[in-house]
C-alpha cells in the first residue's frame, strides 16, 4: 500500500461506488425490476463482509460466527427503536448504540478465547453463533422469540426537515417541475429528504453513503499504525511480539471493530426489513455467505470485498430469481417433478459459481497478494 498524501478513496473504490450508485438508474429504464431493494441488501452484506475482512483478511483470525454479531446488532436496534419497548431511540442513535453493543459483544467473546490457534478459534466463533441464535430464540420475553420485533423505523435523513424547509424558503425544492424530471429516481413526494418504502432509490442512496463512510473508516484503519499491527500479527505473531506489539490487544481491537461493523450491518438489515425477522435469519448460512463474499471478492482488499458482495448477493437475490422468473414466463419448466421446476436448481448454480470462481480466481476478484508465489 504505497504511502500517499491523505486521499479519500482509491481509484478502485471510486469505481465500485460509482457502479453501485448507477444501479437505481436501471430502475428508471425497467420499472418492473425493482433493483434498489436488493441493492440495499448488497450494501448490508458489503458492510458485514468489511467487518469480517478486518478479522479474517487483515488479522488472519478465521471467524465462522460473524452472523451472531449481525443478529446482536439487529436485535439491539429492534429493542432500542420498537414501540413495543419504552426506549424508542431514533434511527441514528440506535445505529450507533447497536454498533457499540456489537463491539462489546466482540470484546466479550474475544477476551477469553484469543489465545486459540486457527481452527480452534473458528469452532469457538461457530459455537458462539449457535449460542446467540438459540439464545435469541429462547429469551422470548426480551426478543419476542421467533415472532421478531416489528415495526422498526425507517432511516431519516439527519436534519432532513431543516434543510428541506430551508430549500423551500429559497424556493428550490418546492418547484414541482424541477423534481418531475428526477421523478423516477428521487420519487414522488416533494419533500426531497423523506424516505419511505415508496422512495426506495432515496433509501438506497442513504445506505450507499453509509457504505462510503464505512469504507472511509476501513481505509483509515488499513493505513494506520493499528492496521499495520494487524498485518504483522497475521503474517507472524511471534515476530510481531518481538517488535513490542501485544498481539492479544491487537486481536481484541480487530474482533471489536469487526463485530461493530457486523452489528451496524444487522441494524441496517433490520431497518431495511422494518423487522428483526427471526433469529434463524442470522444462522451459520449467513456466516458462510459473508465468508464467501470476502474470499470471492479478494481477501484483504476493501474494493474486492464490496465487489464480492455485489457478485454473491447479486447472484442469489437478483440473478437467480430473475432467471427462474424468466424461465417461468417463457414456459420452461413446470411443477410435475423435481427436475423440471427451475427453483430446484438454485443450490446447484450457487455451488458451481463458488467452485468455478475459486478454481479460476483463487485469490479473489481483486487480489492483494504481493509476494510472488515461490
Amino acid at each position, binding site marked *: 500500500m504505497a504511502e500517499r498524501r491523505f486521499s479519500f478513496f482509491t*481509484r478502485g473504490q471510486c469505481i*465500485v461506488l460509482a457502479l453501485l450508485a448507477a444501479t437505481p438508474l436501471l430502475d428508471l429504464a*425497467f*420499472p418492473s425490476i425493482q433493483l434498489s*431493494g*436488493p441493492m440495499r441488501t448488497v450494501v448490508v452484506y458489503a458492510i458485514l463482509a468489511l467487518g469480517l475482512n478486518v478479522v479474517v483478511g487483515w488479522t488472519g483470525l478465521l471467524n465462522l460466527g460473524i452472523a451472531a454479531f449481525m443478529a446482536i446488532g439487529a436485535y439491539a436496534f429492534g429493542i432500542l427503536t420498537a414501540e413495543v419497548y419504552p426506549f424508542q431511540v431514533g434511527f441514528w442513535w440506535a445505529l450507533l448504540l447497536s454498533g457499540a453493543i456489537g463491539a462489546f459483544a466482540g470484546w466479550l467473546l474475544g477476551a477469553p478465547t484469543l489465545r486459540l490457534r486457527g481452527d480452534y478459534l473458528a469452532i469457538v466463533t461457530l459455537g458462539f453463533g449457535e449460542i446467540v441464535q438459540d439464545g435469541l430464540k429462547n429469551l422470548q420475553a426480551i426478543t419476542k422469540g421467533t*415472532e421478531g420485533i416489528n415495526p422498526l423505523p425507517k432511516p431519516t435523513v439527519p436534519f432532513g426537515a431543516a434543510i428541506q424547509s430551508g430549500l423551500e424558503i429559497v424556493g428550490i425544492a418546492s418547484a414541482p417541475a424541477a423534481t418531475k424530471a428526477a421523478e423516477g429516481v428521487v420519487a414522488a413526494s416533494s419533500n426531497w429528504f423523506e424516505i419511505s418504502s*415508496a422512495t426506495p432509490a432515496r433509501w438506497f442512496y442513504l445506505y450507499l453513503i453509509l457504505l462510503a463512510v464505512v469504507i472511509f473508516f476501513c481505509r483509515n484503519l488499513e493505513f494506520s499504525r493499528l492496521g499495520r499491527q494487524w498485518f504483522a500479527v497475521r503474517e507472524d505473531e511471534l515476530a510481531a511480539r518481538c517488535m513490542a506489539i501485544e498481539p492479544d490487544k491487537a486481536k481484541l481491537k480487530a474482533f471489536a471493530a469487526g463485530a461493530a461493523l457486523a452489528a451496524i450491518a444487522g441494524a441496517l438489515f433490520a431497518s431495511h426489513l422494518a423487522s428483526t425477522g*427471526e433469529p434463524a435469519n442470522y444462522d451459520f448460512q449467513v456466516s458462510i455467505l459473508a465468508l464467501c463474499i470476502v474470499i470471492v471478492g479478494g481477501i484483504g482488499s476493501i474494493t474486492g470485498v464490496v465487489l464480492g458482495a455485489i457478485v454473491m448477493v447479486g447472484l442469489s437475490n437478483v440473478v437467480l430469481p430473475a432467471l427462474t422468473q424468466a424461465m417461468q414466463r417463457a414456459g420452461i419448466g413446470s411443477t*410435475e417433478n423435481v427436475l423440471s421446476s427451475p427453483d430446484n436448481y438454485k443450490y446447484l448454480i450457487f455451488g458451481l459459481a463458488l467452485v468455478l470462481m475459486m478454481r479460476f480466481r483463487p485469490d479473489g476478484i481483486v487480489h492483494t497478494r504481493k509476494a510472488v508465489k515461490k
Partner: protein
Amino acid sequence: MKHRIARTAATLLALAAPAVLGTAALAADALANSVKIVSSLPRTGSANAQTTSMVNGIKMAIAEVGGKIGDTTILYEDWDDASPQRGNWDPAVEAQNADKAIADTSVVAYIGTYNSGAAKISMPKLNTAGIVMVSPANTASGLTKAGLGEANEPAVYRPSGKINYFRVVPTDDVQGAVAADYAKEIGLKKVFILNDREVYGKGVAGAFEARAKEIGLEIVGTDGLDAKASNYKSLVTKIKQAGADLVYFGGTTQTNAGQLAKDIVSGGLKAKLIVPDGCYENAFIEAAGAKALQDRCFITFGGVDPKLLKGKGAEFYENYKKTYKTEPEGYAVYGYECAKAILAAMERIHKAGGKIDRATVLAEVGKTKDFQGALGTWSFDENGDTTNRTFSVNTVKNGEFSTVKVVQ
C-alpha cells in the same frame, strides 16, 4: 491493479445485465389490457412439496375462468420468497417480492405468504400500496386480531388504516382449541406440549396450552425442540418420566414432526400424538412411516379432507387429480380457494362494469360474503379472517388420512 478492477467490474455488469434485462424485456411485452396475480411462497427448500400443490391449485382456478374475465387477461406469476443459502423463506427476498409487486403496476393481487414471519414483512408494504393480500396458509392469530399477539398487533400491519390482508385458513387460536377439546373428549389426562420454536408452531402450541388450562388438562411439561436435530429419543425418555399420555407438537413436517412421531414409538412411549395442519400432507406420513402413526396420531386440519369435499370441493378434487395426476395435498385447496375468491371479486367488478385495478379488487375482495367455495360457504369477517370454522380431526389408518370428527 486499478485498471483491472474496472475491467472486472465491467465484465460483471456485462454478465449480470443480460439476465436482468432479459426478464425485463419479457415483462415489458405483457399485453396492454391485462392484470397480474402473483404468489410469494417458499419454492426452494423443504416446503417445496406443499407450495407446489398450492401453485397448482392457483393455476387450476385461473384455468377454470379460461384465463380471462371479460376482455382482461389474467396473468399469474409464481414468485419464490426463499433463497438457496437459507434453504427456507428469506426475509430479504420476501421484502424484495413485496417491493417488486408494488413497483409492477399490473399486479392487482398478492397471494401469500406461507410462513407467518414472512407476512409480517410484506403486510405493511402492501398495505400502504393498497394491494390486496390473500394468504392460503398464515395462521398466526396476531396478524388480524388484536389482543392475541403483541400489544401493537394488528394495527402495526395496517399503516394506511384500511384492511388489505385476508386469509382463507382459520387462525391458531381456533385450531388449538379444537385439538384440546378433542383430547379431553377421548379421555386423555396428562399432556406434554412441544413446539418447533417457529412462529407457526409456537403460536398453535400456545393456543393449545391456553385452552388445555381452561378445560382442566394437566400440563406435565413444555419444551421447544430443535427442528434440525437428528432424533428426539432423549426428549421422549423425559416425557416418559413425566408420565404424559398425550404429546401435542406445534410444528410442521418440515420441522421434523415425522422424526418425533417415530422416536415416540421407538422410545416405548405409550402416548398419543396430536399435531396441527402443518403436518396434514402425504410427506408427513412418508417421513414418519405409516407404522409409527397407525391409530396413535391425530392431525387437526382447517377444513375437510379434499377427498370428502362436497359440491365444488369434489369438483376441485376430480379436476386436480385429472390435471396433475396426483392426490392434492391438504393445502392445495387453500391455494385454489384464494385464487377463486379473487377471481370471483373480479367477476363482480366486471359485471358492475367497473375497471379491474388495485383499488377495486381490494374493495371487492373485502366484500366477499357467503362465498360458495371448495371449502364450503364462508365469508371474510371484519378482521379479514374467514368465518369458516370447520375443522376436521383426522387420524392415519394404514397410510391414509381418515377423518374422525368434523367440528363446525
